[in-house]
């Protein structure tokens, strides 16, 4: 019959045993996405003068990210939850610091300079939010179903949303909300309450309109009708669709996309990296990337449902919500289905902090996976 074995946390194991517990499908998907991303970023930034483009810094990001991933996978995840106060405090402090003394680029104050390196704290906060929410939710004996029980979670998330919104980084602010909703759903908050929250958020969104920067407003309006100003606000959306559409079934070949290499695509190594993939690798490549994400999400949710404890489950759901939101909004924007809010494609887009944070998230999931009860036959 079925016998469950529960290894004790923190028990030393041999390396061989640990490797056997690794979720290789999840690791494989992650590696594949990082590799595709590295190729796309290189193609997007390659110039005749510098054929390798941003390959070197990208590899550095990957190296740091891989190290962090292994570290988080090895770390017993419960220790993250036990230190939640520190995590939340440092997180708030970093975001506040960014708003105060952060480095400004592309019209937003999103980066903190640490020596020669720029760090984007909002990417780290997503992970921090996941940890603190998961810990809090897992400590409850029953799901927060009344409004008074939900309020603390809203108050917990709101400062982060506000600080990031002020940078301004609309996409990250929205991704906090997505993470919160995904985790509340997993925690068993009744449908009615969640629907109410979403409705309230939508009703309140016009209040945020006056707070948006003019460029954000024109970008959102351009989404409704890109052709109203094809050379101005609608330019990015139109060029992205042209790039993806012109890729056809099989694509123009890596490094051979004209929209990409002739610079018609804006931000082609960050926000619009999916358009590079669509153009150069075609429908086949683009759907391949989406399949990798689908497989990745499926594995993470598998880990969530088989985790040893609810804290582990919620961590996985949080990481899945974050990645899913990024993928849907980023790809949706590239194909003209979602408004441009400046969200990178996880594991694929160029951007060190985001990659490291996402790989750390994978590490956390692997840590949960490695410590779940084994089902032996």
């Amino acid at each position, binding site marked *: 019959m079925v016998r469950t074995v529960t290894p004790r946390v923190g028990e030393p194991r041999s390396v061989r045993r640990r490797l056997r517990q690794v979720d290789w499908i999840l690791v494989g998907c992650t590696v594949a996405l990082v590799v595709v991303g590295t190729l796309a970023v290189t193609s997007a930034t390659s110039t005749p003068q510098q054929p390798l483009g941003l390959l070197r810094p990208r590899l550095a990001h990957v190296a740091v990210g891989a190290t962090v991933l292994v570290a988080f996978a090895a770390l017993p995840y419960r220790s993250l939850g036990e230190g939640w106060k520190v995590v939340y405090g440092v997180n708030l402090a970093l975001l506040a610091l960014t708003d105060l003394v952060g480095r400004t680029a592309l019209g937003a104050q999103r980066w903190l300079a640490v020596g020669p390196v720029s760090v984007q704290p909002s990417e780290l906060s997503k992970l921090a939010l996941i940890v603190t929410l998961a810990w809090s939710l897992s400590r409850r004996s029953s799901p927060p179903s009344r409004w008074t029980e939900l309020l603390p979670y809203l108050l917990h998330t709101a400062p982060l949303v506000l600080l990031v919104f002020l940078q301004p980084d609309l996409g990250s602010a929205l991704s906090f909300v997505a993470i919160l909703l*995904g985790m509340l*759903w*997993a925690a*068993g908050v009744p449908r009615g309450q969640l629907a109410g929250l979403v409705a309230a958020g939508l009703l309140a969104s016009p209040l945020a309109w006056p707070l948006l920067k003019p460029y954000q407003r024109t970008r959102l309006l351009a989404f409704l009708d890109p052709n109203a100003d*094809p*050379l101005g606000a609608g330019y990015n959306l139109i*060029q992205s*669709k*042209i*790039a*993806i*559409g*012109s*890729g*056809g*079934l099989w694509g123009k070949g890596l490094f051979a996309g*004209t*929209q990409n290499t*002739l*610079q*018609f695509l804006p931000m082609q190594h960050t926000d619009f990296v999916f358009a590079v993939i*669509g*153009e150069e690798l*075609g*429908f086949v490549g*683009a*759907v391949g990337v*989406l399949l990798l*994400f*689908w497989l990745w*999400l*499926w594995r993470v*949710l598998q880990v*969530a*449902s088989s985790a040893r404890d*609810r804290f582990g*489950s919620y961590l996985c*759901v949080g990481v*899945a919500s974050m990645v*899913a939101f990024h*993928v*849907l909004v980023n*790809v*949706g924007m590239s*194909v*003209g*289905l979602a408004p441009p809010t400046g969200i990178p494609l996880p594991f694929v887009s160029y951007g060190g902090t985001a990659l490291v944070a996402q790989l750390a998230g994978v590490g956390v999931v692997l840590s949960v996976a490695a410590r779940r009860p084994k089902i032996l036959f």
Partner: protein
Amino acid sequence: MEGKSASLASRLTSLGMSLTVALGALVVRLWQLQVIQGDYYAQLADTNRLRVHRVPAPRGLVVDRRGVPLVVNRPSFSVSILAMELREPARVLGEVARLLGLPEAEVWARWEAARKRPFEPVRVRRDVGIAVVTVLEERREELRGVVVEAEPVRVYPFGTTGAHVLGYLGEVSAEELEALRPKGYRAGDLVGKAGVERQYDAVLRGDEGEQVVEVDAAGRPLRVLREQAARPGNTLVLSLDWELQREAERQLQGLSGAVVAMDPRTGEVLAMASSPSFDPNAFSVGISPREWKLLSEDRRHPLLNRATAAAVEPGSVFKIVTGLAALQEGRTSSRSTFLCTGSLQLGRWVFRDLQAHGVVDFTAGVAQSCNVMFWLLGRSVGPDGLAAYARRLGFGQPTGVDLPQEAAGVIPDRQYKERTWREPWYPGDTLNMAIGQGFVLVTPLQVARAVSAVANGGTLVRPQVARAVLSPEGRVLRTFPPVVQGSLGLSPSTLAALRRGLEAVVERGTGQAARVEGLRVAGKTGSAETPRGRPHAWFAGYAPAEEPRIAVVVLVEHGYRGGLSAAPIAQAMLSRWWQGQHAAGGLGWSAR
């Protein structure tokens, strides 16, 4: 515990399903963009990266029969705007207006046009000075979207001389474009608007070349993918003899009128002048609305080609028609005599001549332009006969000359008068018609064709200004052989009698001012009463009388007397021609 994890599992399942549906929707969207609309977007991507530069073809030259260049090209630069590359209209357009010295509103109007065709350069100004071009090229990066293109400009080195035959250029109009677009014409193109520039536009235009260039998003050209050179337009050789043309223009200086000289044997037009004239160079780089208003509203109508498009009363030159009709119908002969008392009684009306010529024979009657004799002849032939002979001589219909916009003139008959004036035809109308008054209207070119038919023995030939088309390399592509439009069907004696009369006109009659030393000249003067002022002066003749090789027609509007103001001009034309005949080589290629 079991209940909890079951609820978590089901919630995770539904989360996974929603994500699957959302990702599936993205796949559907990708299918739509990449597979269904893939070709459409591929084309858009090519439009992005490929610039098709038009390489304008230099327009063909126009030369006279001896090869004197009459219309040529001069290299120049045009400035255009390419909307898809112009990112900061407010700054760039203001700068362009300042550099080109144009009002900003005009540049903005061009920008509006350019936005409708973002991938086509829209011209802002032609013939921009080299200093401005240099500045524009230097500041290329900051003035993205402003394009400088080499484009030849049309030059008419002789200015107003021959302007009506040569014509001028203008931007193709919307209506013209409808018809011409299939032939590759595009908005903003220059096309011939008058004269041979218009008539032979297809010959002169040439084939524009193109250059397909790959550019990056900044519009920087990276490499030429394909190139096809432009083919210059063909050379048009006119039958005009520029020496004669200039003489004609010189003679018309300060007058309103027209001069036509043509070879009666072939119909080749040797000179065609109309005065006052205009300078076609003003149109070459786009005429300003103010200049255009001045020209088109000038009451002296400088744009009108009086040789082909002005139908006026012929007066006594029409007596050629009356004389031919009467001779051919047997109403008179060279031996007939008439008594001219200076007037003719018709019922209760008396028609008065200028003087009493006494007893005249046919030859003397022609020489003196005796109205009484022609009244009698006209009455004997009758209005229908006069109209029939006039039409046989080509009056009342366009000559078919290879120039645009020709007037048909009017040859009246009973139906015409009833239709137009709602009055019956009176016998007095016949008398008026017999001497080229009343309702008769003719163009100088029609008179030249008719007098040529008399000179060449009775053949109506079509007047032609084009002589040959040469390839840019000089190979003959096409010649224009004489076109016979009909035979007058006149007996030799009829022609001989009339020609004797016409010779007498110059020898001892009203046209003595047209006499040229050593050259037998024949002709007829005319002083046409007109309701609009002093009579028009006419002279229509040919030379040498024994074997005519040139026909000359002169019209001086309000010139009073043909013998006084028109015949001397004909004399100048004929003596210039006669000098040319004796100079080495004669009239160039005219020796057939």
